[in-house]
Each structure stands twice: as structure tokens, then as C-alpha cells.
């Protein structure tokens, strides 16, 4: 009863032709892909190295090759202050946020602290709010002149400027707090999957809870902790928004802000200095990643035992209430207070006036054609850019997972570049790359270039989000599709994409939000007449219109909340409808 193999008309000759066609087509597609990645990821990065040794824009004629700029940058004491500042910020912020993340991950998964189940949702919500928005919230609260805290203190006790968020303390505080959710989510899996019998063995050996925690629990998730710490340090190295808004007013320059200053705040722009600093950042990031490699080499930690038997959480006794209070404190500090400040600020007719809240700022923003177009443009760039970033991340991660040899190495390298290049350096690299190629200089000052760089800058985040989902996808699921007769592209769409769709959509949403909150890239690349919300809000803020800036942010967050709401609703309806149709279809 079996059906015969459909023999193709021409027999072997047609199969030879078909094979040749497939090989050619595939080769062409791969070549296109390799060249495309090269243009977008690798070529701009080379501009940085070249830029260090050529003084001037690539468009200028007769630019000499010289070490002068390089030497000048290295002999400038500002460079070394910048390095020191960056190292202090990275060390302090990285340590605090990793410790905080590890602490919350531990109480969330291994203990009986009340409210621990709220931790993961809380951290995820936190992650969904771009750092720029938080920083604004904190400025509204802790600004020395007219921050809310200081206003309250002044009214109560007549104290002036007690709190100043625009300082070393404020910078480290907001950076550390801001990265705790990311650290937490990076380490959550390791803490959840670790073999709790290790702790039990320690307890049986006579170690108390705290001794067990420090001698067994923490070392057993060592690689996860160092991995998270290094990733967060890299991200802090690259952060622009906090240092620019909080550090710069206090005279604290880090790499990202100093590079920006060399390009925009000095005339003529000191490109070689900017590139030298960029190269230093990249080298430091490379060093950090190599340290991680070195740490992981030769150590085998089987945190995953395969048996996910749930064991009793560690009983902490009275101290669990202290920990519960810490969770609440974190909720207040990292979500309620800064976001509340933005919300409150957006409702004040003039910043600081608390007794007459109105929606005037919102109507003003929406009525102003410039602000409205800024919102609309940001929405477009974010939604389309997020989709492209997610698609590129999906495709490249998939290739890295499924391919071997040259393609894998090449794609890994290309994908690594946006990891190592902070937004401001990336923008600078693209700026020069576009100017260096005659046919491309038309891209300079267009929304398209801004969009491309925003996409590239968002890719590391997207890769992180899609990696986990793809890694869980067994290759056999795809093979089963091919064996069933489905073509490669059909398998890719109906099986691979379909299965990771939830992660893909979440990633798209998050990528869009992050693009809308990216300040570094548009500050360097936004063309005239095209101002993303981040830059618009900054302009409003610089002009003293805090309330208007706050209203802009709240509109974005409201829009995001509406999207989430719609997704939730459609899911609910979808499951209802499918439940009903399957019920009617199969009624007897």
C-alpha cells in the first residue's frame, strides 16, 4: 500500500541539474549574507582603528597618516582621568548590581522569604523601562536645585540641596540599581537549577545557613556570577545616559561622554582623540571577555543535574522579614519612586507645583506639531527597527547554533562587534564608514543611517533574548520537518519561527522600547528635522521644561502598556476562540 517514490521526469540528469541549481542559489545567498554582515558590522568597526591614525574626516582631501593624535590623546591627562572614572564606575556599579542580583536570585529561588515570588515579575517590568526614563525620574527627585526630595526637605526643615543625584554617589547609585534586574535575570537560571543537595550536604556537615551560603551556595554558581558580573561591567562601560545626565554636570567624564565631548563640544572636533578613547574601550571590553574565558577554562560546574526535584527552601527564620523588607525597598527605589516622579512631573503645570495637577502637558505635547512628529517618528523607528534587529538577531543566532566552520566563526565575530562598541562609538564608526565610501555619503544625515545604527546597537540585547529560546530548540524538530517533505524555508517559518514566536515578540517589544529610549546614537546621528523622543526630551530638559519631558516619556510608556494590554487581550480571545472552534468541530 505504499506510494511509489515520485521519479522526476528527467531521472538523474534532472537531479544533477537541481543539485547544481541548489548549490548555486545557496552559495549566492550565503555570499550575499556574508557581504551584508561585513558591510554593516565589520567594515564600520575597522574605521575606528583607521581613525586613530588619520586626522580628519574621511571626506577631507590629503588626510595624513599620523601618530600625533594618538600620542596627543595618550599624553592628555583628561584621558587618564576618564579611564580612572570609568574604572571606578564599572568596579563599583558592577560589584553592587551583581551582588544585589545574586542576592535577590538566591532569596527568590532558594529561600522562604515572603514576596519572593514577586521578584521575577518585578525584575522583568523593570527591564522593560529604558534607563533614560529612570535617570530622568531620579533627576526630578534628586536634582540639587529643584528635585522633589530637596523641595520636601526645604519645606519641612529649610535644608538646602541636601541630596544631589548629579554626583559620584548618585551616578553609582542609579547605575547599580539600574543593572540589578538584568543581573538577577542572568543568574536566575543558575540559582534555580543548582543542585540543592549541595547545601543539604553542607548542613549535614554542620555548617549554618550563612556559612553554607558563602562557602557552598555562592561558589556553586560561580560561573553564572562571574559571567553576569562581566557582562554588566561591559554594559556599564558603554552606558551613556546616566554619565551624561548625572556625571557630566558634576564634572565626571567617562569614556562615552568624553568621546561625545571630543566630537561635539570641541571645535574643531578632535576625532583622533575620540577614536583613541574608543579603541581603549574596545580593548577593555576585550580584556573583560578574555578574563571570563580564562575563568571558565578548565572548570567544570554541573549546575544542571537534570533532576529538577523541588526541595524545601532554606528556612531563614526571623531574618526573612528583613529580606522581605529589602524586596519592598527595591520595588520602591527602582520602580515606584523614579517612575512615580516621572508621572507626577508630567502632571505638574510647572515643575515643582504640586497642588494643581493637570493633563495640560499631555495635550501640549500632542498639540505641538514638532513634539507630535517626534513621537510618531520615534514610534516608527522603534517598531520597524525593533523588528529588524530581532530578525537579524534571530537569523544570526540560528546560524551560529546550527552551522559549523567559517560561517559560524564569521557570524560570531560580526555579532560580537556591537557588544564591544558602545552606542556612541558605534555611531562614530558608522559616521566615518558612510563618509569613507563615495557612493554612500548620501546616507549621511538621513533617518535611514540613524535607523541602521539603532538596529545594530540593539542587536546584543536581541541576541540575548533569542539565544535561550533557540538553544532549547532541538535540531530533530527541524529534521522531522525536512523528512516530512517540507523545504528549508518552510521548516524555518512553520517550525523554527513558530516555536520561538513568543520569545520573538517579547524581544521585538523590548527592542522597540530600548530603541525609543536610546540617547547616545541619535545625539550624534539624528538628522535635522528628525528628532527621536530621547533627544527631544533632552532638549526640553535642558531648557528647563521637565514636565514636558516627563509627559513625553509617559506617552511612550502608555503606548507600550497599551501594546501589552492588547497582546494580553488577543491571547485571551485567541485561546477562547480556538477552544470554542475545537469544541464545535469535534462535537459528536
Amino acid at each position, binding site marked *: 500500500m*505504499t506510494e511509489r517514490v515520485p*521519479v522526476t521526469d528527467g531521472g*538523474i540528469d534532472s537531479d544533477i541539474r537541481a543539485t547544481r541549481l541548489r548549490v548555486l542559489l545557496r552559495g549566492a545567498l550565503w555570499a550575499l549574507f556574508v557581504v551584508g554582515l561585513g558591510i554593516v558590522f565589520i567594515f564600520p568597526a575597522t574605521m575606528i582603528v583607521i581613525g586613530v591614525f588619520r586626522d580628519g574626516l574621511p571626506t577631507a582631501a590629503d588626510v595624513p597618516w599620523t601618530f600625533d593624535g594618538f600620542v596627543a590623546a595618550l599624553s592628555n591627562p583628561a584621558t587618564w582621568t576618564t579611564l580612572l572614572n570609568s574604572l571606578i564606575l564599572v568596579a563599583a556599579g558592577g560589584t553592587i548590581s551583581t551582588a544585589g542580583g545574586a542576592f535577590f536570585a538566591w532569596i527568590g529561588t532558594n529561600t522562604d522569604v515572603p514576596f519572593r515570588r514577586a521578584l521575577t515579575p518585578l525584575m522583568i517590568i523593570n527591564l522593560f523601562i529604558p534607563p533614560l526614563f529612570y535617570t530622568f525620574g531620579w533627576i526630578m527627585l534628586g536634582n540639587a536645585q529643584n528635585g522633589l526630595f530637596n523641595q520636601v526637605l526645604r519645606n519641612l526643615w529649610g535644608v538646602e540641596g541636601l541630596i544631589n543625584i548629579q554626583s559620584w554617589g548618585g551616578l553609582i547609585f542609579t547605575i547599580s540599581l539600574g543593572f540589578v534586574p538584568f543581573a538577577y535575570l542572568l543568574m536566575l537560571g543558575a540559582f534555580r537549577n543548582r543542585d540543592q543537595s549541595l547545601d543539604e550536604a553542607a548542613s549535614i556537615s554542620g555548617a549554618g545557613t550563612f556559612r553554607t551560603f558563602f562557602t557552598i551556595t555562592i561558589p556553586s554558581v560561580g560561573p553564572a556570577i562571574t559571567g553576569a558580573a562581566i557582562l554588566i561591567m561591559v554594559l556599564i562601560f558603554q552606558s551613556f545616559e546616566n554619565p551624561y545626565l548625572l556625571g557630566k554636570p558634576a564634572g565626571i567624564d567617562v569614556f562615552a561622554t568624553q568621546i561625545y565631548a571630543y566630537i561635539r563640544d570641541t571645535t574643531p572636533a578632535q576625532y583622533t582623540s575620540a577614536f583613541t578613547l574608543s579603541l581603549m574601550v574596545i580593548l577593555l571590553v576585550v580584556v573583560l571577555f578574555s578574563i571570563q574565558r580564562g575563568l571558565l577554562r578548565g572548570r567544570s560546574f554541573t549546575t544542571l543535574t537534570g533532576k529538577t526535584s523541588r526541595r524545601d527552601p532554606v528556612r531563614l527564620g526571623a531574618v526573612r522579614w528583613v529580606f522581605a523588607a529589602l524586596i519592598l525597598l527595591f520595588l520602591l527605589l527602582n520602580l515606584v519612586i523614579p517612575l512615580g516622579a516621572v508621572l507626577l512631573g508630567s502632571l505638574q503645570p510647572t515643575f515643582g507645583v504640586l497642588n494643581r495637577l493637570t493633563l495640560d502637558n499631555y495635550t501640549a505635547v500632542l498639540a505641538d506639531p514638532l513634539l507630535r512628529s517626534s513621537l510618531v517618528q520615534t514610534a516608527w523607528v522603534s517598531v520597524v527597527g525593533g523588528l529588524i534587529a530581532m530578525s537579524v538577531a534571530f537569523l544570526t543566532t540560528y546560524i551560529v547554533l546550527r552551522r559549523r566552520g567559517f560561517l559560524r566563526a564569521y557570524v560570531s565575530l560580526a555579532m560580537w562587534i556591537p557588544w564591544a562598541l558602545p552606542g556612541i562609538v558605534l555611531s562614530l564608526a558608522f559616521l566615518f564608514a558612510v563618509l569613507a565610501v563615495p557612493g554612500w555619503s548620501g546616507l549621511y544625515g538621513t533617518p535611514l543611517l540613524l535607523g541602521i545604527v539603532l538596529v545594530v546597537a540593539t542587536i546584543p540585547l536581541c541576541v540575548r533574548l533569542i539565544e535561550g529560546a533557540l538553544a532549547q530548540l532541538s535540531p*530533530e524538530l527541524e*529534521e522531522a520537518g525536512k*523528512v516530512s517533505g*517540507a523545504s*528549508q524555508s*518552510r521548516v524555518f517559518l512553520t517550525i523554527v519561527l*513558530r516555536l520561538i514566536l513568543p520569545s520573538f515578540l517579547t524581544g521585538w517589544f523590548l527592542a522597540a522600547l530600548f530603541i525609543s529610549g536610546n540617547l547616545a546614537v541619535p545625539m550624534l546621528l539624528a538628522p535635522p528635522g528628525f528628532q527621536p523622543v530621547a533627544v527631544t526630551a533632552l532638549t526640553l530638559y535642558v531648557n528647563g521644561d521637565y514636565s514636558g519631558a516627563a509627559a513625553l516619556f509617559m506617552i511612550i510608556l502608555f503606548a507600550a502598556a497599551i501594546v501589552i494590554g492588547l497582546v494580553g487581550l488577543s491571547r485571551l480571545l485567541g485561546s477562547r476562540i480556538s477552544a470554542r472552534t475545537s469544541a464545535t468541530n469535534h462535537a459528536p
Partner: protein
Amino acid sequence: MTEVVVSGLTKKYGAKAALHGLDVRIRSGEFVTLLGPSGCGKTTTLRCLAGLEKPTAGIVTMGDRVVVDTERRVFVPPEKRHIGMVFQSYALWPHLTVAENVGYPLRVGGMRGVERRERIAEVLDAVGLAEYGDRSATALSGGQQQRVALARALAARPGIIFYDEPLSNLDTKLRFTMGRQVRSLHDENGMTSVYVTHDQEEAITLSDRIIVMNHGLIEQDGTPEDLYDRPSSAYVADFMGFQNILTGVVVEAGARHADVEVAEGLILRAQVAELVRMGDTVTVAFRASHVHVEPAGSTGVGLFRGEVVHSTFVGSSVDLVVHARGASVQARIERSELERLGLGHPSAGDTLEFRVRASGALVVKGREGQRQAYATEAVNMVA
């Protein structure tokens, strides 16, 4: 129905070859099993046949279509080979229901409407899951999931079905019933089946023919009876459960038998498949159950006196580890045999007369090189 002809199939990963020029002919409607330990190349062979791996060299013909010919640069991708496959991990798509999983190959093949629904119902019925069509595929038990995978492989009525260790994730009892179902579906549908496993019992009970593989080469190819009774090499003997594999020197050579001295003064008589000469070093293999206890004072060939060093009661028989003249022999003695001789259960320290029956002992090809390593490991595990 599909005949498969493989010639010179070679697969290299970098410089390392996983398959060395394999030649196999699988007749139409045959149930063939590729048997061997992990790393022997059986799965690579299967994946090359299915088109999931591209062979480095060789020709594969399925039915009257050349699907791989590296010389003429032909490679037909898996989706154009009209095959079915059952995976070790079941590989059911979690976003589809049981019926949708089974219907996927049909949908891809362009079958629609009533015809498709009927076909899905038919194959689900064949695997005993008629009631489960609307369930989510991953909500089923392991055995049920594997039956869905089986139904999916059968749905488009391919001429050939490949099985990649499909039962290894199931428990023993389920494995037995599922194995029977696989075989009866093969018999009913009359397709060709190629089955990969490392379990000799599974191979013996299911197959028309077994191909034992070793380091990318075919070690022995024959019916289950052939392999069970007449393994040609120590490697296959070991795999087929010959607990005793000893090396020795031929002291008496006959046309069908040879006497082999496996330890000083310990001479066993064994069947020979190929001619051996006096003084040759050969390997003798026999099962523990081919060792018998003899009354004290017996004489003859294959007889030896040994000391029991270990005795394990295993129900209807007793397993012994016997030391005789420096050689270690495993014996499985039926309790009825002991009763007939008026003996109690032997315990450690007892000395008894044993005989290895010549009909059960075989002179086989020895091991060399890497094979030795695997075999020693296996023997150590048994001992």
C-alpha cells in the same frame, strides 16, 4: 516499496572519518537493523541515507532514483526523498496537536480536506491513538508520543522509514510492546525499514537482517540467528552476549573443530568457520550458559577443574565466576543440572569439574587496536 543500494559511503568530519566506504544493499520490504555501540557510525549511516547529512563520498540509490552521487554531484535533499523517520527524542512539534503533527507531511505534500482527515484518522487508528487527535502532542506520555511520531512517519506512506533509536527513551516493558508494534506496522504496510539501535535484544527480535557496525565499517551482516549463534568476531560475540572471550593457541586443528589452549593446560574445543593451523593464536568465544558442571572424575576434551570465586543466585540458575589455571571463566549453571548431579548451590571456594560444550564455543576473529579497548571495557563491565 524501496530498495536501497549504498556503495562506497564515506563521511568525514574534518580529517576524522566516521564512515569508511560502506557498501550495503537493503532489499525492498526488508527490516534491517544497524547495530553497534555509540560512535560506531550507525547513526551517521542512517542520517546519510535520510539526507540529513551530506556524505563525503559514495553513491546512494533509493528505488530507481540516485539520491546521492558525489562523483556526479547529485544530492537530493531529505524533503525530496519521500521518506519517513522516527527520532529518538520523538521530535513532535509542541505547537501542533497530535492530528496536526501527523498531518504535517500530508499538508506539505498538498493533500487537503477530507482525504487528509481520513488519512490522519487511519494512521492514528493504526497506532492505537484514534481518540487522541485533538490533544497537544507534548501532553502525552512517552510511549504515546513515540506512537504519534510513528504515525507521522507513516502518514505520507513513504517507501522507506528510518528509525533512530526510537525506543531508547522508553522503559523496558513499553519498549517491548512498542517494538512489536513497529514490526507489525512494517509487515502490514510493506515498506522498507532501516532501524538503528545499540540494543542487541531489540535488534534480534525486530529485524530480518542485522548489520553490526564498528568504527565506520561493517563488522558482520546476517540474520539474527547468524549473529546470535555464529558471531564471526570477538567484537560481535561480545555484543551478542558471549560472556567469555579468551585467546589461546591452537594445539589440535580439525576441519570443523579446533582444540585451543587458552591457559596452561586448559584446552577448549571450539567450532571453526575458517581453517586454522596448529600454533595459530586464536580467540575463543562462548556463552556462560555453555559451561556445564560435570560429575567428579569425568574425562574428555574441554574439561577443566576450577575454583568458584563468586556465586550469584539468579533465579532458575546460578551465575559463577570460576578461576581455572589462571583463566577466569563465567558460567551460568541451571539449577536442574545441579540437582541432577546431586549438588547444592556452589559457593565461593568450592572446586568443581566444568566442561565447555564444543557446539557452543566458537573460534572467532580477534580484536586489534581500538576494538581491544572497547572490548576490554565491556568485559570489565560484565565481570
